[in-house]
């Protein structure tokens, strides 16, 4: 069990990094990486949402979707509704968390507030839920997988935003300025992460 968890942790953060190896969540990766400060806020929100949504979706999958029911004499299995249910549940969950945060923890709401609605239907969040189902993880393993995947996302985002802050001040050839050099940098960063591929 402990061995398995270690594999999940290292695998999710470094080897199968969501952004740099699986290419999930590229939109916030490019959009919110201009400043390290906003990247930190976004990372915090992603860690928060992905951990929570992995927990909830794996519970729903384990106890409702994967079970076979008898309805009016026919066997019914609702596994095919997986993606639909996950998206609705994650979106509602984030909405709920936002409302509760606003009431009980204004400082936390101030730090994460604007980023929470941005990532409700992010593909990385749905990807974490979907991939842990495909891998056959239990509830605890799914939650750890979601948390570590989010950490991997945060690592990539913060590294990339630090690089972009430096790029702002560098002398970049005119045709490559802006997003172009950002994409090239992201590609090189992804190649760097390929170096981890033998770890797990």
């Amino acid at each position, binding site marked *: 069990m402990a061995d398995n968890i270690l594999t999940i942790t290292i695998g999710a953060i470094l080897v199968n990094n969501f952004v740099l190896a699986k290419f999930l969540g590229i939109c916030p990766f490019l959009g919110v990486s201009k400043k390290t400060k906003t990247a930190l806020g976004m990372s915090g929100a992603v860690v928060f949402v992905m951990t929570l949504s992995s927990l909830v979706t794996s519970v729903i999958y384990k106890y409702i979707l994967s079970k076979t029911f008898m309805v009016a004499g026919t066997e*019914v299995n609702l596994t095919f*509704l997986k993606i639909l249910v996950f998206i*609705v*549940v994650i979106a*509602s969950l984030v909405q709920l968390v936002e409302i509760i945060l606003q009431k*009980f923890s204004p400082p936390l709401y101030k730090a994460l507030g604007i980023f929470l609605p941005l990532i409700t239907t992010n593909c990385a969040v749905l990807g974490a839920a979907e991939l842990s189902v495909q891998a056959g993880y239990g509830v605890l393993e799914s939650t750890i997988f979601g948390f570590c995947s989010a950490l991997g996302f945060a690592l990539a985002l913060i590294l990339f935003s630090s690089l972009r802050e430096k790029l702002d*001040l560098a002398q970049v050839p005119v045709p490559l300025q802006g997003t172009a050099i950002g994409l090239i940098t992201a590609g090189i960063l992804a190649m760097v992460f390929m170096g981890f591929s033998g770890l797990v």
Partner: protein
Amino acid sequence: MTIILTSLVFASLLGAILALIIGTAAKAFAVESDPRIETVTDMLPGANCGGCGYAGCADFAKAVVEGAAMPSGCPVAPASDSARIAEYLGITSEEKEKMVAVVRCSGTISTTVRSPYNGIQDCRSAVLVAGGAKGCDYGCLGLASCARACPFNAIEIRDGLAVVHPELCVGCGKCVDVCPKDLIVLVPASVEVHVYCNSPEKGAVKRKVCKTACIACRKCIKAADNEDQMIVKGFLVETNYDNPPLPDLVEKAACPTTALRLASKHAAGEYEGVSK
């Protein structure tokens, strides 16, 4: 058929339950906020520059409504807007003079240069390398740290010199904080005449590295209506912003190095190439 019906019922049930939960939560955990804060936020410029000392316009609006700040504390909003906010809240707001930034340097690349610089294109980085590439140790480095900090695009870099456009500048003071040479000052917008030099060195030393330095020849002091209008500080003359000279002083004084300039003409680039 059963599968279709079951999934329909399941999906509607799920949607209904989630809607119920969120609806209840939104009612139960509703946060009461003063509606005036939103109205005042809408009346503010919405630039979120932070020139007022608060984190953005919404934060400032909250402070104004709670009485912790005056509507005139916003350096961007014109006096008419602050008065409108004060009227809306039923308070009296004191007037505040509009300020603009002035970069106290006139040394362009063509008038003053010491060495090439190919490092990080930022004044604060360049200043670490022997004080930057300009011949004058006190001059503007022209690497646009201030222009990048300006939320209103009021600073232009022209021929290696930062030039403030007074009609765009709102006096938020962001550029003042980033300039590593402390060249930028906020002055009353009504004053037109400024000395575009900040070097405390002796006149002869300054002239060797810059053609448009102030050499403290005192021509402007003699030409002024009142001797108080220009102040001598060491080897440098400064406008007395408490008792400012009239714009025609620039013409009357005929500054031999053209360090004494009108802000509007300096921004329009009318002094370029006139120095001897």
